[in-house]
């Protein structure tokens, strides 16, 4: 089905202001991320931001709008289009005691800094014992008609690199609490902000400046008894929609939101599968050799005796993210796809 939603601005970003919390304290994911950065910069002067167009312009998605007025151009540092050197600046300054947070305009451009990320950042502590408290942030994910070069989900590349914690929050509160944890963590962290969620999902977000969400812990988003859906990022919202609908049809679905890809909370996954005996992994990064393969393998190795059905995966095919709404909708798992997969599993 072709959705009629049209994104404002090119490739999902726009020039509209970031916006504010509602009277009731609800914040979008975008606002929650900005709050995390702001609070951590207020708290610790070693924290600084660097990236392209993040200063006066406030970043392509307006995450850092207004930051330069408060923190100045040294702590909100505009860089040229030089991704390897953006990562290098972060690594080198972290080696000398700073806590940099580098913004990639899109997570797609992390590949332009790939070597510094996977060869230096991911491996340096293991071979030297020098901590690298670096956070790399970037808007990831599709569903916003941004096509091949502005929609990528790079989490498996970097989870596979070893020494990087890879975080993919689905909700504003998690985004805030996990980003704050990442900034306080002494290890390299990659924080992938799903751009489809930015302005769509809002909730009441804690205002306590020490509100933290632990890295590496999953969260059960919906309790169920028949089938477990293991998922993360924007797919959590599809899975929850599917689960609500399936409940009407008499199927009780448990939704486990991984929140962090590496390190992965396999205990939470196994605990849920021990209860439901059926598992579906839904994710937006590539299906082949991906996050779902890892989750399925862990379940097969450690929960085989609990299983009543094969573990299933639902994820995009390994082709570039296409532009045409007809193609992108076919590419991404949707609510109907999830329901169909759950029904198949339930039939076992």
């Amino acid at each position: 089905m072709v959705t009629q939603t049209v994104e404002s601005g090119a490739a999902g970003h726009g020039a509209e202001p970031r916006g504010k919390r509602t009277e009731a304290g609800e914040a979008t994911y975008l606002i929650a991320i900005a709050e995390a950065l702001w609070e951590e910069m207020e708290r610790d002067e070693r924290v600084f931001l660097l990236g392209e167009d993040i200063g006066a312009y406030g970043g392509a998605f307006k995450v850092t709008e207004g930051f330069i007025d408060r923190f100045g151009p040294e702590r909100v540092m505009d860089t040229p289009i030089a991704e390897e050197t953006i990562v290098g600046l972060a690594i080198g300054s972290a080696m000398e005691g700073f806590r940099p947070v580098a913004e990639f305009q899109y997570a797609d451009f992390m590949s332009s800094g790939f070597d510094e990320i996977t060869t230096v950042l991911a491996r340096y502590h293991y071979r030297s014992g020098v901590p690298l408290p670096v956070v790399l942030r970037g808007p990831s994910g599709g569903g916003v008609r941004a096509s091949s070069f502005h929609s990528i989900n790079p989490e498996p590349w970097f989870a596979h690199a070893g020494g990087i914690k890879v975080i993919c929050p689905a909700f504003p509160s998690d985004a805030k609490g996990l980003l704050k944890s990442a900034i306080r963590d002494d290890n390299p962290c990659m924080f992938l902000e799903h751009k489809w969620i930015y302005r769509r999902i809002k909730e009441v977000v804690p205002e306590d400046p020490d509100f933290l969400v632990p890295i590496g812990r999953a969260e059960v988003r919906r309790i169920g008894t028949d089938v477990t859906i293991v998922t993360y990022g924007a797919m959590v919202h599809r899975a929850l929609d599917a689960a609500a609908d399936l409940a009407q049809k008499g199927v009780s679905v448990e939704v486990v939101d991984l929140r962090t890809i590496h390190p992965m909370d396999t205990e939470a996954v196994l605990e849920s599968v021990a209860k439901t005996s059926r598992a579906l992994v839904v994710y937006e990064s590539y299906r082949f050799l991906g996050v779902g393969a890892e989750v399925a393998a862990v379940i097969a190795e450690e929960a085989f005796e609990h299983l009543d059905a094969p573990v299933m995966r639902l994820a995009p095919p390994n082709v570039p993210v296409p532009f045409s709404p007809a193609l992108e909708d076919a590419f991404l798992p949707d609510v109907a796809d999830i329901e169909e997969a759950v029904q198949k599993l339930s039939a076992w």
Partner: protein
Amino acid sequence: MATEVSKERYLAEAVEELASLTPDHLREVLYKLKLCRYFDERMEALYRQGRLPGAIYSGRGQEGTHVGVAYALRSDDSLFPTHRDLSAQLTKGLDLNRVMAQFWGRIDGYTRGRDGNSHIGDWKGNRTFAVISHLPIAYPVACGAALAYKRRGEPRVAMAICGDGATSNGRWHEALNVSAIHRLPVVWVVNNNQYAYSTPNELEFAVPSIALRAAAYGMPGVRVDGANVLEVYAAARDAVERARGGDPSLIESVSLRWRGHAGHDPAKYVPRELLEDHVQNKDPVKRFEELLKAHDVIDDDGIKAIQERVGREFDQGYEYAQSSPFPVGSDVTKGLFVEDGYWTGEPSREGGTQS
């Protein structure tokens, strides 16, 4: 090309530079040159005898560059070297015992056996970045260290070295550009030893010199003779001063890679006459020794004492390395993240000395 200087002119011109260092410092420079040369020769011999595991990347013939640039740094300045630049790290102060333990994969090596040969660094002590193969991957990281010094108003500099071949890689250009835009206290050094593995300069760049490229980024660039350690040192000292004042610059130091790319490579692609000319007439160690003798900074006994000292230090390092235990296999997953405390605690020494 680098200024071709006859031996006589070299001796005469060097006098001015001689005056900038005390006799003790000059003798220390000679010691460093001889240490690096001796280490390089002995390690290659051990490699050829099959007594050294892994690889070696000889820096022979380039000691003038390595010692000259690193000697201009203070201990709290940082150095970002490549596989070829162990002599620069030794000059900065790395402990020969631990360096040798690294080559033999032992727990007392700077990387606790996690990396080998010249993929070494001592960030916590001597402020040298643990070498990474990918060229020139430390260039962007040097920008970051320099940014930290600048932000805190510290009079420190970051120096990065790479070879002529590495300048073809995009991040070399990124890093120079960013350092100039943000006025970072960096000294960029290119050890132009005329070959990148088998590839000569003319297949790596089409400009007459690498130093010329500095202008494209808005910084000064100089080309110096790597056979003349004092000329290299003077250029590095000026560049370090400039960096302390807040501006980056580029030094291209020209020499020749006397040996193959690594221990396995006979380097038949290097013309014999070129190599002979460098070994006979442009040996940075021999030239400096002659200079100091000619100016009565050292005599034959003094030279002999240095030679004995480096021999002794090498033998001690070798013994130290052989008696240092291997890391234990069960530690293989430790220290990826900081939480397990592997790098803040003492590692197991139960690995034994037999592999």
